[in-house]
């Protein structure tokens, strides 16, 4: 049996490892995607005042601290049974919209986009943001840097600090914004809308107009029929900060819609012997393995999932793009994973529009941005949509508000099962009779790069060994050899 290892996976947060096992004929027998996992977060949090959680959790992950800050802030509000005043909610969502625009921009231009813009067969050294700049022009690089600068600036104005905001506290924020700041934020948001439109046009010109790429997107290689999850507002429109969790079935019909506090009644976690990370699935559908279809509880949370799980976008320009997206790809839901990149750009446009909507809201400069909690703290759940998927924080405290227990389901963990399935399917289709070249291997990576996974923050409390374990299996699945790396 021949073994192929893609290691390290370029441009992916967390040092993952994919193992592909070939059979005697040189075809793919099986694939495993394993990642080292950070440990002991719950143990680290127990005994601390719960209001520290928005500051602590934003250190979990180097990629989306803002998402952890927001989920934690909402969970702490729930622990204290306090309702944040409208201005407080709007300020948080405004910060979050600017963060989203920044994060989606970075992903598209630095991580996911190069595969399309440079082509999946281009040399590795060119498939990055520098290659994109060389190919498309210096102007694009300048816009990306500007977009990031504006996003970081809004996070700093509202969140008190760049990248790692620190202003959310139980019941709201520590400070609001003044008219001068509002004007600045609005101006940057208007620029962001133009940038998002520019990005969608670039995607249209470079990717959708290229038959090879379009065929790749709509082809079967990266297609899975699973459930889709996303937060929606009262009108079932996509929302990143607040609302109910809605899940649609593979046929696109609503399967369930629940309040964040009810997540545990809907989500369970499956354990596999070959990885320490668990696979969340829909509890009431059940775990049937790494398989597609309505009887399998596997669900996905990504920009595409959010679009599939909603009835549309709450802003006009993004809604028009949403309609074009489904018209082009053959109606709802879209199952092709590479369409996640397009969905991400539609969300970029929504984030920019929402940014301006909130920046021009008459309440946004109101001093009423915090309610003082008065109830005894108990437990609470906070859910936001992280760019990579639904992010759940659940805290329990004693009557003093000291943390006694923590549970997190991070964005990427939701997608662990679908990513594993996509890698397998791409490998099946692209590696035949032992014929593997760099372009093919990169297309295997493309399968899950679309999900934008970052397993660095996929935390659960796990005492014991380092989590990287490689199991070598025979074609019929029997363990042949177990390799453990960095174990004591």
């Amino acid at each position, binding site marked *: 049996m021949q073994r192929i290892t893609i290691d*390290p996976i370029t*441009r992916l947060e967390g040092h993952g490892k994919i193992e592909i096992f070939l059979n005697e004929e040189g075809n793919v027998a099986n694939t495993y995607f394993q990642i080292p996992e950070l440990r*002991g977060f719950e143990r*680290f949090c127990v005994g601390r005042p719960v209001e520290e959680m928005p500051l602590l959790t934003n250190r979990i992950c*180097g990629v989306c601290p803002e998402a952890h800050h927001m989920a934690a802030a909402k969970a702490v509000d729930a622990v204290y049974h306090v309702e944040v005043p409208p201005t407080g909610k709007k300020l948080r969502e405004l910060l979050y919209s600017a963060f989203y625009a920044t994060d989606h921009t970075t992903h598209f231009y630095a*991580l996911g986009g190069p595969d399309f813009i440079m082509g999946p067969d281009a040399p590795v050294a060119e498939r990055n*943001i*520098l290659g994109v700049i060389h190919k498309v022009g210096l102007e694009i690089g300048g816009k990306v*840097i500007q977009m990031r600068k504006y996003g970081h600036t809004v996070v700093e104005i509202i969140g008190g600090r760049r990248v790692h905001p620190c202003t959310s506290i139980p019941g709201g924020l520590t400070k609001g914004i003044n008219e001068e700041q509002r004007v600045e934020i609005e101006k940057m948001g208007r620029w962001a809308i133009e940038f998002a439109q520019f990005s969608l046009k670039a995607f249209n010109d470079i990717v959708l107009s290229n038959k090879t790429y379009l065929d790749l997107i709509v082809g079967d290689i990266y297609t899975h029929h699973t459930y889709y999850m996303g937060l929606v507002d009262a009108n079932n429109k996509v929302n990143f900060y607040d609302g109910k969790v809605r899940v649609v079935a593979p046929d696109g019909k609503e399967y369930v819609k629940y309040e964040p506090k009810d997540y545990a009644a809907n989500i369970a976690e499956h354990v596999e012997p070959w990885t320490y990370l668990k696979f969340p699935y829909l509890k009431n559908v059940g775990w049937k393995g790494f398989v597609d279809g309505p009887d399998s509880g596997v669900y996905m949370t990504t920009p595409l999932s959010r679009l599939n799980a909603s009835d549309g976008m709450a802003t006009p320009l993004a809604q028009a793009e949403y309609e074009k997206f489904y018209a082009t790809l053959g109606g709802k839901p879209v199952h092709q994973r590479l369409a996640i990149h397009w969905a991400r750009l539609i969300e970029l446009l929504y984030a920019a529009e929402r940014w301006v909507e909130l920046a021009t809201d008459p309440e946004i400069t109101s001093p009423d941005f915090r309610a003082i909690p008065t109830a005894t703290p108990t437990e609470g759940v906070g859910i936001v949509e992280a760019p990579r998927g639904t992010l759940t924080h659940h805290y329990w405290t004693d009557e003093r508000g000291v943390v006694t227990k923590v549970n997190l389901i991070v964005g990427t963990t939701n997608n662990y099962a679908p990513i594993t399935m996509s890698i397998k399917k791409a490998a099946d289709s692209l590696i035949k009779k032992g014929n593997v070249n760099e372009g093919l291997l990169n297309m295997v990576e493309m399968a899950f790069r679309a999900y934008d996974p970052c397993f660095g923050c996929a935390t659960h409390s796990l005492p014991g060994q380092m989590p990287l374990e490689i199991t070598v299996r025979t074609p019929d699945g029997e363990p042949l050899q177990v390799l453990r790396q960095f174990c004591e």
Partner: protein
Amino acid sequence: MKTFVIGLGNPILGDDGVGWSVADQIAKRTMDRPDIEVDCVSLGGLSLMERLTGATRVILIDAIFTGRAPIGTVSQITMGDLPDLTTGHSASIHDTSLHNALSVGRSMDIPLPEDEQVIIVAIEAENVYDFSEQLSPAVANAVPEAVALVMELLGS
């Protein structure tokens, strides 16, 4: 001529916080040096490049995990020797490597230090996977040596 001293790392991830510990000490010792700016960040790739805007010289302090040197070994490396992906933060594989990010920045005419003006002071780490605010003993013991090295580089 502005020198940035940047502690990289995650202060709640065990030895990953060593860059911050060293930078904290440097900040206390360089308060009378207007030509030196000290900061602690958890950034990599493009974000780190953006943070380096305006510096003529940079000293990055970070945990390193090579497995080839005793825990607590302090080394001075340049961008040229930077092994791919072995420092926790200078290479963000979420967006791009620091090398690539600096090239992007320079092509945008962002004022950035030349590669040879980016010095990395690396401390071999033991634990960067368990959440903790404590450094391993051997890494904690290496902090004074790393501080002395940075101060020497700063000409103090």
